[in-house]
């Protein structure tokens, strides 16, 4: 599904060079629920951004579903993100002026292969699944943090992406809401065989992952399954 070869990202701040990723090589299988863990500054988010085509690596290669994403143009990357990838951000990142339904529908509206009826149906379906259909006309500020993050998951899932990326999705949530969100991810993974790559620094989250890689100083220091079998 995803092949990462010798991925390196170097940030230059004046004369100082920061090696955020240092020769990361790994494969991620379809249907896997991968946890990327590590201390702050270990390179978790940088890795996620590289895989999600939000940033360009200094060197190395990422191949997703047979496509070397480094060769894509800016527009092709945008379309790749729209059609194949989904994102859940730490701070929910919903558009504050759009209702829950509009936020969820937004990526689906842009797909050329979806009619209005189809994207409405898809949005209603995913909102029903996360239990927020009754809140479809609410604005994000009218929802709790946990509800906002579930809407964010719905938005990420509405286009049925090949891979779902989540960047510390529980960082701004209490334990109860974190569990709700993680259960949601687990449900999506199990029911829809959704490939999920999630960054987390909370140790108790590891129970949800099939496989965990740990990063330190931009390098993979451990990579192991968590007792699950991949679908």
């Amino acid at each position: 599904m995803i092949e990462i070869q010798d991925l390196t990202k170097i940030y230059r701040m004046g004369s100082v060079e920061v090696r955020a990723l240092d020769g990361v090589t790994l494969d991620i299988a379809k249907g896997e629920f991968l946890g990327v863990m590590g201390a702050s500054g270990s390179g978790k988010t940088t890795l996620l951004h590289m895989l999600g085509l939000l940033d360009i690596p200094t060197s190395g290669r990422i191949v997703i579903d047979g496509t070397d994403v480094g060769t894509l143009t800016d527009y092709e990357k945008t379309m790749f993100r729209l059609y194949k990838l989904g994102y859940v951000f730490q701070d929910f990142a919903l558009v504050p002026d759009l209702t829950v339904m509009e936020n969820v529908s937004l990526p689906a509206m842009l797909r050329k292969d979806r009619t209005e009826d189809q994207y409405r149906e898809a949005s209603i379906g995913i909102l029903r699944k996360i239990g927020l259909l009754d809140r479809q006309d609410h604005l994000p500020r009218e929802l709790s943090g946990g509800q906002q993050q579930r809407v964010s998951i719905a938005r990420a899932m509405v286009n049925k992406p090949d891979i779902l990326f989540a960047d510390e999705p529980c960082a701004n949530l209490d334990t109860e809401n974190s569990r709700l969100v993680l259960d949601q991810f687990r449900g999506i993974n199990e029911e829809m065989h959704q490939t999920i790559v999630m960054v987390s620094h909370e140790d108790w989250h590891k129970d949800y992952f099939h496989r965990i890689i740990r990063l330190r100083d931009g390098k993979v220091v451990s990579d192991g399954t968590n007792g699950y079998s991949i679908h």
Partner: protein
Amino acid sequence: MGKKELKVAFLLALRSLQRGSRSSVILTVLIIGMCFTNMIFLPSLFNGIEQSITKQLVDYEVGNVLVSPESGDQYVNNLGATLGLINGLPGVERATPHYTEGATFTYRKRILGVSVRAIMPDDEKYVSPLYTKMIAGDYLGNGDTGEIIIGKPVAGDPTIREEDEFQPSLGGVRVGDSVTVAYANGYTRNYRVKGIYSTGWSQADSAAYVSWTDMEQVIGEPLDHASDITVKAKPGYSETFIKNELIQYGVADKVQTTSDLLSKSLGTAFQSFAIINLVSLIVSIIITTVVLFIVITIKTLNSRRQIGILKAIGVDKEVIMHNYGFQVIILAILGIILGIVLTMLLAVYMAIHPVVTPAWSATLYLTPTDIAMNSLILFVAAVVAGYVPAYQVSREDIQTAMRA
């Protein structure tokens, strides 16, 4: 950029304006509306003044074409034949002569110098709306003798003391009163005031009118010469056409259109108006452009992270740019509509309360073309001002935008 992308950009724009800062929207619309009003008010007022002066000049002085004596001559001679020729030409509504004689008016203890204009009252009705401007008494008839109509400033106001008057008058003449008129040729006659008029055009209001028949008695012989002949064109015939026709058919006197006369007398003033209009227009456009540029720049800077997120979830930069573009378009349309409403209200107010000076009165002169042109100019300026920051921010890379 397909229909779907434009639809999403429009949705984002609409929702941002509907659910974003209402005060910011109101303030921006207000500023654009004010700029539109500023753009159009001054030129419309100047146009109103120009139109007013031109109309009054046409109505009370020169008609569409003025036939006056060649230099060296005192009068347009051979009047009967000349009038016959002009009145027979295609496109001429009517040609009517004026004969002006200086005179001294005496009423009670007041003495006043006034120009007396002899007219053919019935023909004059085709050329001048003077007969509709009577505020007391009646207009002249063709055969009237010993009767005179005078302007309101000549008649004066009995309640105003002589030393307080803006311009000298006869101190309160009323219809039916008798005034003594001593002409420059030595002839003196008592006239009954048949009517008092007010045109708003100072030169006409400062004069008095008698019939052609009456003036023949003053001169003591049939009048076959005139100070000038005013020619009124039929609708659809241009002044230049009439002028060329008159020259072609052998009118030997000086033939000038209203435009010829205006360019000589008021050309410089009208040019100054045009310069002021242009400066006002440029300043308004600059203000609108800068304001919208600032508004959209602030909006985009405040939304950089959101723009980054939108790009991250697969929203193309063109959609993001058009989102802000549509916001500006909506704001500009609302502002222009407000500006049109404000301008119309001002136009109505000024129609009721025109700018009045002793020489002329003016209202706002607005044409649909003026409104359309100014709307278009402001709209284009607004769109350019909005799209520049929108273009810049939409090109920013996702990481930089998301870190903002």
